[in-house]
Each structure stands twice: as structure tokens, then as C-alpha cells.
């Protein structure tokens, strides 16, 4: 996660508000018939705001979390918006309820008391509220999924070439030996592609190359994220999923490089069968 993760709530709330209100209003929510377009739009709005506010490059994982929050907020807001309308006009689930009521009436095995009780429930709107609860649960699943997709698409579209999170200080830079056990001494939680390789040195360390020299040190390329490469990334932050973490070969700043996210993860060598 980047340092901007603290500001996820505001974009998620705004995106959730947009998609929730739009999805809760009758007729307006018809756009959701086009592959949950309001929900996707809400995710895109949230990611746009998040990318705009972020000083660092936003990762797709951040966008996914942002989208999940957006969908969750949106589902709750949508239910809150639509619940009064549902209770007033008996909109939601009425077809299913009528169908069930008809089935009960036509079934001679069902006692008439039960049918009357069910009719009372339907007329009082209690079942509509129940449908709203079920609808909320379904909405949470659907909205979270599609808002996540929207947020990821939004980050892909709105992403600018910003700097990345600075890698944690490499302890091996000061000449101290790398952690002996490879238990992630310098590895952070944001090093997903660090794979099995211990940071800074490992069984097949590239001949004592400086840890911060990156792939240009003549060592083998970093792991492809498959977790099986024996060549360790030279820098602790050089995860396979951290696009611009590897130092540029020419020593240029990372922000000046063209966006080349994850090329290192896509080396065919990392996809060998059985690797």
C-alpha cells in the first residue's frame, strides 16, 4: 500500500454516494442494467479522486480495496435511499411475492390460515423490508465486485507517472550483513513479489552486487513473482508487483522513466511449467 492509503475513505464515500443514490432511485437506476454501469462509474469516480489526491503512484491493489469500500458504502446508501420507496410503493420483490402468494393459494395442502398470514405480511410491507435486507446482501456482493472493477479501470485510465513509495532503507547498504534466516528482515508487507528470495542476499546472490543496484547490477533479473526464482531481488522493495521499484539502469529517477509496470514480472522464465 502506498502512503495515500489513509485517504481512501473520502473517495470511497463520494463514489459510494454517487453510485448509491443513482442505484437507489427508480428510473435512474435503469442504467445499472448495462452491466452495473452506475456501480462501475462510482468506482471510477472514487479512483479518480484517489489518484488525484495521491502524491504517489496508486497501485491496482489499492484500487481494488478502494472499490470494495466504495461498493460497500454504495450498497448501504442505495438500500437507505430505496427502502422508503420500497415500503411506500411496494416496489421491490413484489413480483416474486405475488408469485409465491399465488402458489400458496393454489396449493390445497397449505392451510388457509397460513395463506392469510402471508397475505397480511405482504400487505403490511414486512416482506418488502425483508426483501430489502436480502437485496442489501446481494447488492453488497454485486456492488463490491463491480465497484472494484470500476476502481481498477479508473486507476488504469487516470494513473499518472508519479513517484513510487520509497523503498525501505536497505540495511545491507551500510555494509551490515543481510538477515541470516531470510525471515524478511528488510522485507516489508509491500513486497509481494519478493518471493522466496531473502532480501539482499541468498543462496544464489549475484556475486555481492550492491543491494541497491537493481537489475542493472549484472545479476539475474528479479523474480517473476512466481516464488520459485532463486535469484533474489537486489533491493528489498523490488517486488514483482512494485512496478517502478527497480532502479533504472541509467540511474535516472524512477519518475522519469516511462511507465513500465511489472514488465519484470512477465518474463517468460517465470512462467515455466513447474516453476
Amino acid at each position, binding site marked *: 500500500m502506498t502512503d495515500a492509503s489513509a485517504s481512501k475513505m473520502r473517495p470511497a464515500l463520494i463514489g459510494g454516494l454517487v453510485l448509491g443514490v443513482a442505484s437507489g432511485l427508480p428510473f435512474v437506476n435503469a442504467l*445499472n*442494467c*448495462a*452491466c*452495473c454501469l452506475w456501480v462501475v462509474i462510482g468506482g471510477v469516480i472514487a479512483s479518480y479522486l484517489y489518484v488525484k489526491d495521491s502524491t504517489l503512484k496508486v*497501485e*491496482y*491493489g*489499492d*484500487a*481494488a*480495496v478502494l472499490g470494495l469500500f466504495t461498493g460497500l458504502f454504495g450498497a448501504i446508501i442505495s438500500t437507505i435511499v430505496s427502502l422508503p420507496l420500497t415500503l411506500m410503493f411496494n416496489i421491490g420483490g413484489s413480483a*416474486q411475492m405475488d408469485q409465491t402468494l399465488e402458489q400458496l393459494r393454489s396449493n390445497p395442502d397449505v392451510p388457509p390460515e397460513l395463506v392469510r398470514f402471508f397475505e397480511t405480511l405482504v400487505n403490511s410491507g414486512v416482506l418488502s423490508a425483508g426483501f430489502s435486507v436480502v437485496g442489501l446482501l*446481494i*447488492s453488497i456482493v*454485486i456492488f463490491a465486485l*463491480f465497484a*472494484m*472493477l470500476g476502481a*481498477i*479501470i479508473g*486507476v*488504469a*485510465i487516470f*494513473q499518472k507517472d508519479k513517484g513510487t513509495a520509497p523503498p525501505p532503507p536497505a540495511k545491507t547498504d551500510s555494509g551490515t550483513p543481510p538477515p541470516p*534466516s*531470510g*525471515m*524478511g528482515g528488510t*522485507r516489508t*508487507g509491500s*513486497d*509481494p*513479489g*519478493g*518471493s*522466496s*528470495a*531473502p532480501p539482499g542476499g*541468498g*543462496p544464489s546472490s549475484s556475486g555481492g552486487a550492491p543491494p541497491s543496484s537493481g537489475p542493472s547490477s549484472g545479476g539475474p533479473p528479479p523474480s*517473476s*513473482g*512466481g*516464488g*520459485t526464482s532463486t535469484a533474489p531481488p537486489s533491493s528489498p522493495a523490488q517486488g*514483482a*508487483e512494485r*512496478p517502478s521499484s527497480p532502479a533504472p539502469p541509467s540511474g535516472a529517477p524512477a519518475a522519469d522513466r*516511462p*511507465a*513500465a*509496470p*511489472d*514488465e519484470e*514480472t*512477465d518474463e*517468460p522464465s*517465470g*512462467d515455466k511449467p513447474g516453476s
Partner: protein
Amino acid sequence: MQRKLAAVLLIGGSLLWIGLILASPLARAQGWSAASWIDLFFQQICHQIPERSFHLDGHQLPVCHRCLGIYLGFLGGALALPFWHSLRRRLLAQPRLLLVGFGLMALDVFLLPNTWWSRLATGFFAAFPVAVFVEMAFRQLLPATFSIRQPLQSIHARE
């Protein structure tokens, strides 16, 4: 490990989703009431107009041509892009290429006299590249959960 796990999650989720779509007409053919619940679920996502939907075994699928194309495209991307390295690299380097597929779909929606195959095809090509970004997101999210494997693998590698 994260890469494989993310791919498995993505492909498995897509297969489950498409399986649910295909299960609806099959369940309806069997007379199972689960079909109406599946239809109700997808009713929130798709207009389900019969003329714009495929039919299986005489029963309508719960999503339209375009939605089905989108889901199939996503599954196709999840299956193909891990092996299609050149396209994958290009997409990750230039994510706005996504807009090409969306533009084609918008063109089909608003301008062209669309047919079932154009809806299916434009949906497919719009969603095909999206899978690579979702897979990247999964890969970035997974390590926080499965990080225990990495040090263990490291120890095994030393041994």
C-alpha cells in the same frame, strides 16, 4: 506463488460466474426454482431482454449478449494473458489501451446498428484486457495474507 494464486482466483471466480449464468436455463429446464433466484440476482446487473439474450435448451440466459460477451472476455483474458506476454507487457505499460475496447463497445451501443454477434464481440474485446489489471490487483493484495509462505520457502530453498 502469488501469481498462480491470483490467476486461480480470477479464473475460478470467472468460471463460477459464467457457470451461474449457464445454470439458470438448465435449472429452469429441470423445473428447479433456483433458476428464478439466479435470474433475480442477475436482474440487478442486466436488462434481460429476451430478444437480446441467448437461449439454452429453450430457456433464456439471465444476461444479454453483451454482458455474456463481457464475462467471456474477462475469462478469456484471465486465461490467455498470463501466457501472452507481449500484450500483457504492453497493456501494463500503456493501461489506457483499455479505452480502445470500451470505445468500440460504445460505438456499437450508440452508433452502429448492432447485432447479436457485434454485441457479443465488442463486449468480449472490452473486457479481455481488464483481466490483467484485476490479476495485478489480486497479486498485490495476496501477499499480505500469504506472506508466511515466503519465509518458509526461503528456508526450504536454503536447505
